[in-house]
């Protein structure tokens, strides 16, 4: 075939020479355009090469040479493909461009969000400090002979809880003469052998409870066997073995509920002895209860301290009630004995709240809930945050990104907004320092409310999401501090009540004014924590003395205005916010 006839065939629409077709195919393949666009470009390039072939044939160039010239003059097909793609895409419809832009943005956001979510979700903590050991260290240094816990532990494990039927019938409030009192006595008799262990515990200067560890696990198992709750013991042991569970928050205080039971036993035991005129035994039982409370107050957690306060108040109230009801039945020596008991001789400074456990617990949680970048900073790990929040309530959520999607999304959103480790710790320290300053003010100082207000501001203000961990974990220390100070005031007032009883025993009448008790029966009058003044004293219309504090409303209602029901609650179902009357005691 000569060059002219070949060219004419091309002109007539026959296939282009393979070399030129190859160039076109390479360009078309490289454009990655829509099919319709490819068709258009292909047709145009075919037309271009046909025109070239004819032109060059007209100039007398052989076909092979024409093909070579056209290939060379076309340039780089790959670059042509890229540039054609760019040009054609620019010419696409605006709607397509908008759709692509939106899709690209969404895909980008999803990819970025997904990446960020994975970044947040899959962080791992790197706990490096054994805060549990730090918490236990001072106790570990105390010899077992000086620790109350071993004897207390033995007493608790031998203790028989109050029968359910008695508990349901409010057995703790029963008194000699009540219909079910014989059942109470039967229960008391079963537990009286514990008195030896309780006396031993009360004689020790230190509480000595070791948090966590094998001893607690063994105690839990023994308790579970006694209470027939084996599964709980096992799940607790598993939780303690979990390497991702903050150790301080997972420590358990299984003895707290038991202490409450033992303290009720001691009070009811005292009631029974008093009914039989066995004052020495009654005082001993109440004093053991009081000592038990003071011992518990040495606990490093706030809840132990509050339990201690509750036990102390239980013993005090019973004592004051007995003194009120049994006037004239007590001999001088019995009253002297009472004046030498811990009720009247307690050093009130032991009732100073201590928060080292709370602070260590926060530090421990931080190291389990945040990642560790090796320089003291890190980000919140949502799964660990959820674990801490659900401690003791439910199993932690799954590790898969799609497990519990809604919950995960909420946690991830929370983690994304939460402050980092350094800022969280700094904010906690600042809040602690500021609230401590207000908390240490007298109970009657109105600025003291600022301590709680600071915590409320954090949990309800603009920083609530940024510092959700603090808002959730910061205990109401102001309220705890208030309860402890009320207890200290109450301890001080109990001395005055004993002094009153001794005054009456010596002189046959109540003092007209409280000052008459000083200095023979009291070194100084107790101070009302709610006024800063000496505690209020008056004789009512029947000539009965009333000792009271103006109470939380800081207003003197004359020692009255509170109608207690048989359980010691006022008509609104709450403890009084009016005067706090210490003597005569409300029956509980």
């Amino acid at each position: 075939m000569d060059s002219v006839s070949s060219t004419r065939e091309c002109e007539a629409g026959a296939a282009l020479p393979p070399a030129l077709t190859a160039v076109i195919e390479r360009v078309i393949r490289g454009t990655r355009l829509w099919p319709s666009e490819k068709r258009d470009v292909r047709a145009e390039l075919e037309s271009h090469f046909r025109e070239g072939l004819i032109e060059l044939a007209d100039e007398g160039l052989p076909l092979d040479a024409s093909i070579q010239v056209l290939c060379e003059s076309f340039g780089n097909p790959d670059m042509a493909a890229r540039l054609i793609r760019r040009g054609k895409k620019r010419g696409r419809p605006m709607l397509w461009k908008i759709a692509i832009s939106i899709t690209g943005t969404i895909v980008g956001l999803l990819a970025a969000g997904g990446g960020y979510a994975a970044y947040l979700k899959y962080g791992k903590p790197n706990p490096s400090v054994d805060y549990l050991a730090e918490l236990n260290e001072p106790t570990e240094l105390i010899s077992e002979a000086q620790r109350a816990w071993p004897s207390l532990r033995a007493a608790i494990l031998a203790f028989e809880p109050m029968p359910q039927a008695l508990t349901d019938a409010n057995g703790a409030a029963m008194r000699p003469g009540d219909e079910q009192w014989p059942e109470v006595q039967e229960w008391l008799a079963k537990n009286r052998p514990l008195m030896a262990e309780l006396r031993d515990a009360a004689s020790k200067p230190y509480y000595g409870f070791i948090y966590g560890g094998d001893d607690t696990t063994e105690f839990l198992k023994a308790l579970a066997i006694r209470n027939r709750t084996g599964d709980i013991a096992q799940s607790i042991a598993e939780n303690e073995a979990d390497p991702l569970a903050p150790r301080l928050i997972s420590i358990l205080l299984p003895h707290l509920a038991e202490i409450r039971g033992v303290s009720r036993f001691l009070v009811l035991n005292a009631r029974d002895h008093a009914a039989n005129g066995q004052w020495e035994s009654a005082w001993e039982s109440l004093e053991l209860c009081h000592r038990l409370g003071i011992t518990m107050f040495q606990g490093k957690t706030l809840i132990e301290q509050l339990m201690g306060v509750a036990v102390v108040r239980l013993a005090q109230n019973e004592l004051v009630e007995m003194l009120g009801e049994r006037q004239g039945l007590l001999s001088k020596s019995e009253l002297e004995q009472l004046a030498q008991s811990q009720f009247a001789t307690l050093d009130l400074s032991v009732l100073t709240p201590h928060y080292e456990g709370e602070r260590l617990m926060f530090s421990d949680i931080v190291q389990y809930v945040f990642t560790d970048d090796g320089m003291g900073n890190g980000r919140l790990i949502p799964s660990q945050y959820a674990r801490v929040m659900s401690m003791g309530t439910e199993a932690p959520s799954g590790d898969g990104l799609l497990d519990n999607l809604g919950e995960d999304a909420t946690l991830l959103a929370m983690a994304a907004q939460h402050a980092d480790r350094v800022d969280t710790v700094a904010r906690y320290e600042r809040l602690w320092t500021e609230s401590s300053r207000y908390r240490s003010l007298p109970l009657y100082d109105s600025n003291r409310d600022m301590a709680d207000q600071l915590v409320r501001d954090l949990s309800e203000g603009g920083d609530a999401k940024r510092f959700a961990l603090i808002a959730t974990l910061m205990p109401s220390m102001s309220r705890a501090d208030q309860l402890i100070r009320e207890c200290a005031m109450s301890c001080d007032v109990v001395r005055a009540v004993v002094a009153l009883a001794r005054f009456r025993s010596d002189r046959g009448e109540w003092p007209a004014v409280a000052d008459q008790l000083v200095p023979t029966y009291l070194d100084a009058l107790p101070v009302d924590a709610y006024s800063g003044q000496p505690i209020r004293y008056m004789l009512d219309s029947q000539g009965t003395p009333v000792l009271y504090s103006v109470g939380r409303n800081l207003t003197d209602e004359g020692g009255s205005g509170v109608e207690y029901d048989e359980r010691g609650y006022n008509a609104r179902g709450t403890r009084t916010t009016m005067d706090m009357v210490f003597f005569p005691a409300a029956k509980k």
Partner: protein
Amino acid sequence: MQFERELLKGVLPLAVMKMLRQRAMYGYELVKEVSTQSDGILKLGQSTLYPLLYNLEAQGLIESEWRESDSGRGRKYYRLTESGLDRLERDLEQWDQLVRGMGRLVLGGLQPRLAWLFA
């Protein structure tokens, strides 16, 4: 003559639009006309021409249509649009200023006698 690519970047669209002001042309014809009318100084690489045409078309400065030639072959003709014409006028004016400025800058100090050519 081989020009620096960056130098040609702004010139080639102007050259193509200038050609299309004369009449509608198809791709291969444009290549030839640019070369001919520039006395062979400007040579349009064909891998550059078509992307350039698609870009101008995307900007609405030119438009295209397939037509059948006398010989029956299909050709895609490009012609200048109204907005392309406006743009060409503006670009030519700028080009004129640019050439004058460059002429003075390059030749003014060296050959004052030739400077009048660019005035």
